């Protein structure tokens, strides 16, 4: 019969139309919120979703996975007296590995001793050139530069970030990437333990610590 294929196709469309609203009804009957709730968004971005599963941006937002990456930022530790302990040692690996070469670092010497100061004097990232590849954070040996989750940076001006704009506290980093933060903290503690053990071994005790993963 001519037109059977068309009807079959329309059946698919009709089913999808039905599914779109059926789930709404089911959720409503169960007393759950399908829209504007984390549970609903998680369901709508899972493989079990049916029908239309649009997330109404910006009222609703998809949950960003931890690894999501956008423009980098510099991490600092907050000291109890409010001072910022910048983790960056201006070693320049990020500037060297950056594919579009959008990182500029100024390193300066101590005027008294003449030796290089680890903290960068100035740090620029040209965010309009940055391609968000994440190499800088991947290869940073000090976990000092990390990729941000904040993607709403549209502006009328050129986005050139200086150090003031780039610095964000470690607590912020922990809030956007809890698992990475926990892993890096564990690594750091393990390394410190090894160091302490080595120091102790050098001091006479002979108990080599096994480095934790």
């Amino acid at each position, binding site marked *: 019969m001519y037109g059977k*294929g068309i009807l079959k196709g329309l059946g698919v469309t009709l089913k999808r139309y039905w599914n779109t609203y059926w789930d709404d009804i089911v959720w409503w009957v169960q007393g759950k919120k399908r829209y504007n709730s984390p549970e609903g968004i998680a369901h709508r971005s899972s493989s079990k979703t049916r029908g239309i599963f649009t997330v109404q941006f910006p009222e609703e937002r998809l949950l960003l996975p931890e690894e999501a990456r956008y423009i980098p930022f510099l991490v600092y530790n907050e000291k109890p007296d409010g001072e910022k302990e910048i983790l960056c040692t201006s070693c320049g690996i990020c500037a060297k590995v950056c594919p579009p070469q959008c990182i500029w670092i100024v390193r300066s010497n101590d005027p008294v001793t003449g030796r290089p100061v680890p903290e960068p004097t100035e740090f620029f990232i040209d965010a309009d050139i940055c391609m968000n590849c994440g190499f800088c954070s991947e290869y940073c040996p000090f976990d000092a530069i990390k990729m941000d989750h904040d993607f709403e940076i549209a502006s009328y001006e050129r986005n050139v970030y200086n150090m003031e704009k780039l610095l964000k506290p470690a607590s912020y980093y922990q809030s956007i990437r809890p698992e990475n933060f926990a892993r890096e903290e564990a690594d750091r503690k393990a390394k410190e333990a090894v160091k302490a053990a080595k120091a102790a071994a050098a001091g006479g005790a002979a108990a080599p610590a096994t480095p934790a993963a």
Partner: protein
Amino acid sequence: MTAPASPTGTMSTSTLDLVARFPGIVTADARPAFSGFIVEKDSLIEVATAIRDEFGFDLLTAVTGVDYFPENKMEVVYHAYKTIGGPGLVFKVQVPRVDPVEVPSLIHLWPGVDLQEREAWDLLGIKFTGHPDLRRILMWEGFEGHPLRKDWKEGFYEEDTKPFKSRWPDGQFYMAEDKNPFKDNLTFPTNFDPEKWIPEGDALLYGALARYTVKQEDGMSTDRIVINMGPHHPSTHGVFRAVMTLDGETIVGLKPVLGYLHRNHDKIGERNTYLQNIPYTDRLDYFNSMSNNFGYAITVEKLMKIPVAERAEYIRVIVAELSRIQNHLVFIGTLLNDLGAMYTPSLYAFEERELILDIFEAVSGARMMCNYFRFGGVVRDIPDDVMQKIKNLVFDRLQAKTDELDRMLTENEVLISRMKGVPMINAEDAIKFSVTGPVLRAAGVPYDIRRADPYGIYDRFDFDVAVRPNGDLMDNYLIRIDEIRQSLRILEQAIKQIPQGPINSQKPAYQVRVPAGEAYGRIESPKGELGYYVVSNGKPNPWRYHVRPASFVNVTALEKICIGTKIADFIALLGMLDMVMGECDR
């Protein structure tokens, strides 16, 4: 056995005969870690004919040039393969680097070299004698110089290689636009009237399509008209222009005009370090950054001669096949858009793509620009919860959704009458024009690099090479659905077999050491053969980095495909090539 230097052992006995067959004309490439044969320039056509007809290498996939500036010579490199599978044959022509650099064109043997020879002329200044239409292709007509030559410097030239010294330790920050002599405005030369200005190249372009009047049998004379399709046409999927000559509604001549999205990926790649190229490959075919990464990674791994971690091999297959599925879904969606079934099928397809991109985002950090592969493995493991998501998607959802798409479209009478019997390309022409990918397989040639010359661990999976016999539009559409099903089969096996273990065989290093040599790595990207030709001289940056994109080479056949069809079919035929301009223009 006196086998020629071949690090990978790809030379079979039949290729050994090449030196014996042409004594004094063909010599094996004796440079360490180089493979293939060097052919005398004057005998190139004779040797190439023998390679095609006697040795059976019927598919000439890649043609490119290398500028050996210090040795003061230029080299043209050809990669030929057999459509029945097996390793390839590399042959090269070396010419002194004195203008004009001339090499005979192979266009009469393999018409598929057309655009690639034009590209080599445009970017490297190698003149292919005998090429009927040797114009610039990626750069504009009137451009001075050949940008891929090593002595050519671009407008914002800073240094030969990255990293640039101005960035650290005293980062002298500047904005790129400060170096632009025009700032944010443009100045024209005096006495310049844009209304009257005709670009130099256009006369040549339209000359190739000469407008003329024909007398019909009934005594009526018709004017042939020239129509520009694009560059801003929604059906061209980007900025692609086709100049067509029409006789009534029939296309009688067609020339593709490319290069609107050209950013000289090859030159950028030669400036970058090996690692820095990975995120740039994402930007080639931006629907399949995973496949692009894959191709580049295996090429550099070939050069470095390093193994890939076992678990990473499986992860690579999983992400590459997911990428193929979403590419074909988007293809079907946009194809239906092109045919006039606006948005319903394409949005259905995009929904599934959305779920796949969620997975990419969770593993790599980005939805499209994944930057996920590293030399020796991948950047990070797939977490357990994401693995569960992939399992749910592959085992529960995608199969059913593919069936649903199939049910919705395949039997639709309107679609059938639109597509069935509209010829695209036959097997013989497809091979001649170096067409690869689904278009070649829909023409009845079961040539899939995953089977013909397996890379990664594709030889471990049980799957069929999707093939359709007719080469019409319907087959080109159906083969995509077949391929989605085969990809799901591969995925099911890969997910079941994936072992635990490390995800990279190397220690993370921001500068990799790549020994001198050359490598050509190729993968079956969703659009066809994606090849990378990399020459290393042992320094941190590649000496030559060339991408052989599937879209670009497939466009070569567009003229052949379209001539004789109606203009209304052009959009469907172009859509079937599934081209992405990011990859095509690079």
